[in-house]
């Protein structure tokens, strides 16, 4: 019986056997990790063709994660998008509150098959860390999560969740103290402990086979969304929109639509305080090809190949790299990438909360802001699917400070009310 939720080896010829998506990808890793990364590739290849693996994963997807996830039309939100119809793919409704669980359960099963007893992972917003800690609790694996010190502060709720689940959370104090540095530290751990440890990488970056494998575990998002939108709207959408940090939720949504040439694939990168300020994490908009964390892709860097410090209000998008398949989609023209500022994302976050009763993660709010723009460009006949990749509970402290929602912060509230005016908000 074919799987309902696991769709490996999609049609198309990327990546190559060496892990290249056109000019991007590959395997730039230290010799000490070559054997372990090769083992992951071999084990994943076996798992792909093993009906028992698909059966186990399907069972978890249905009875643990709660798949398939809903496709919710949001007409009151869409009134602010030029009247286009907008549907949200509700990955926020998955167990643990984001799309991350799709990949984590797949790799956790793989960890068991490899006979490894310990899992490490990086996390930015904490969504991948929470999902990983969850799977480790479920499977009885030791779990260590690396998280930038700045992110442990702005995503404190998720730190507590991970610890509640039994994971050790290590605050990384090196470099920019965000996601990039958490990945560096996880790699250092992996090199030293690779005999019994699997690095459960959380996005579609890293050395081959991670970009392709993580994508495959997330392809379910787009496969479901494509079927659901055909049922609900009777046609394919004009655009599929997702936020991109490393790019996992975006590739998950996009992939099933790649052969549908009429469907625009639009990734929304974090423009932070604005591209022109230099304080952003818009890798495809402002980066150049380079090597970071094991593969060639666009990277934010200076003229001598030093990685520059990224910035975004969203911890999950605050990353100077991007998965190689996105670089390939950009250069081939199949994908479009635009940058969304902190402010635009926060306005979209509040707008969705107030018009539809759905509080999105700040990451996903970048995609919502993109949808408002694209909807206006398309007009009232437009049809858009947005990946609502995560829920916003974890972001309430950041949002409360941004909008001045704390009683104890009355002055901040008054200031923020001025800056937080959104179109149509008062009606």
């Amino acid at each position, binding site marked *: 019986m074919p799987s309902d939720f696991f769709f490996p080896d999609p049609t198309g010829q990327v990546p190559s056997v060496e892990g290249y998506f056109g000019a991007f990808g590959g395997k730039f890793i*230290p010799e000490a990790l070559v054997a372990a990364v090769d083992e992951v590739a071999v084990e994943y290849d076996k798992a792909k063709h093993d009906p028992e693996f698909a059966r186990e994963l399907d069972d978890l997807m249905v009875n643990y994660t709660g798949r398939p996830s809903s496709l919710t039309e949001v007409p009151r939100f869409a009134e602010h998008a030029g009247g286009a119809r907008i549907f949200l793919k509700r990955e926020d409704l998955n167990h643990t509150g984001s799309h991350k669980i799709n990949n984590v359960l797949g790799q956790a099963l793989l960890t068991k098959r490899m006979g490894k007893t310990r899992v490490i992972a990086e996390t930015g917003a904490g969504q991948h860390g929470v999902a990983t800690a969850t799977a480790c609790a479920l499977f009885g694996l030791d779990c260590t999560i690396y998280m930038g010190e700045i992110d442990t502060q702005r995503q404190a709720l998720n730190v507590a969740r991970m610890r509640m689940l039994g994971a050790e959370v290590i605050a990384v104090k090196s470099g920019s103290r965000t996601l990039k540095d958490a990945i560096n530290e996880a790699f250092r751990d992996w*090199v030293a402990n690779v005999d019994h440890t699997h690095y459960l990488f959380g996005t579609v970056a890293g050395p081959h086979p991670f970009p392709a494998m993580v994508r495959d575990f997330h392809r379910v998002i787009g496969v479901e969304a494509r079927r659901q939108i055909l049922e609900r709207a009777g046609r394919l959408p004009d655009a599929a929109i997702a936020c991109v940090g490393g790019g996992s939720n975006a590739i998950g949504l996009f992939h099933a639509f790649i052969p549908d040439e009429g469907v625009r694939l639009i990734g929304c990168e974090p423009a932070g305080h604005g591209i022109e300020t230099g304080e952003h994490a818009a890798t495809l908009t402002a980066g150049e090809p380079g090597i970071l964390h094991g593969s060639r892709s666009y990277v934010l860097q200076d003229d*001598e190949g030093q990685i520059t410090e990224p910035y975004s209000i969203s911890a999950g998008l605050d990353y100077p790299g991007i998965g190689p398949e996105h670089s390939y989609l950009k250069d081939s023209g199949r994908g479009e990438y635009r940058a969304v500022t902190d402010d635009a994302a926060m306005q979209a976050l509040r707008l969705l909360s107030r018009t539809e009763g759905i509080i999105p993660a700040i990451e996903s709010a970048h995609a919502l802001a993109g949808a408002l723009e694209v909807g206006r460009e398309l007009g009232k006949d437009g049809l858009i699917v947005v990946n609502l990749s995560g829920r916003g509970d974890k972001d309430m402290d950041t949002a409360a400070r941004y909008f001045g929602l704390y009683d104890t912060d009355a002055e901040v509230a008054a200031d923020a009310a001025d800056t937080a005016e959104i179109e149509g908000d008062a009606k």
Partner: protein
Amino acid sequence: MSGNIQLLSDTLAGAKAEGRAALIAYLPAGFPTVDGGIEAIKAVLDGGADVVEVGLPHSDPVLDGPVIQTADDIALRGGVKIADVMRTVKEAHEATGKPILVMTYWNPIDRYGVERFTAELAEAGGAGCILPDLPVQESALWREHAEKHGLATVFVVAPSSKDERLATITAAGSGFVYAASLMGVTGTRESVGAQAQNLVERTRATGTELPVCVGLGVSDAAQAAVVAGFADGVIVGSAFVKRMLDAPDDAAGVAAVRELAGDLAKGVRGQA
């Protein structure tokens, strides 16, 4: 101008002819300053090191432990550039006549341009490069340019390397083979494990004629003597950097690394 790959090979062969292992030291360029780093490197060579690897600091040193991360950070905040690394190589080589390698991550060279980098390194009198995150299967472009400019390509092998990979790596590499003594990042260790000796033996069993030098974790003369018992060279990095970090001032740091080089030079001669 061609690079000094031959000088590197001759130096390692010379140590072997003396019945001892070579001492290879690592220090980053620009640490604590560009000129201060050059002084330290000259002191290490003067103190007894046969070869120096000059680190080109990188923002994301994923294979380095806290000691070298700290030094890289100081160098980068001081504004070290690739031109400064080239000057470091040139001055260290000209002052001592000894072979100088560069050790760095792949992205700085990829971004700078492989041809430009190899040409400038050869011009500076460099002997080659160690690029620990550039595995052999991604290295064709680098090797083409390194060979053209007379520079060695030193590959790293690890305890986890399978025998067939060791054969591939030794066939592609030049200068020497860098055998990582253990699974982990740079940093000093209490002891260098038995897996180092096993790895050296497996590497030699490929039939390679390249010297096999052991690095990672070696910090004192006693450890150097043990490693010198089975390897062609002993590579020491973090212990030098730590002496510099712990020194009360730059002059004391230079004196401390000169002293350590002297101790280690005895170690590789079995005089620990």
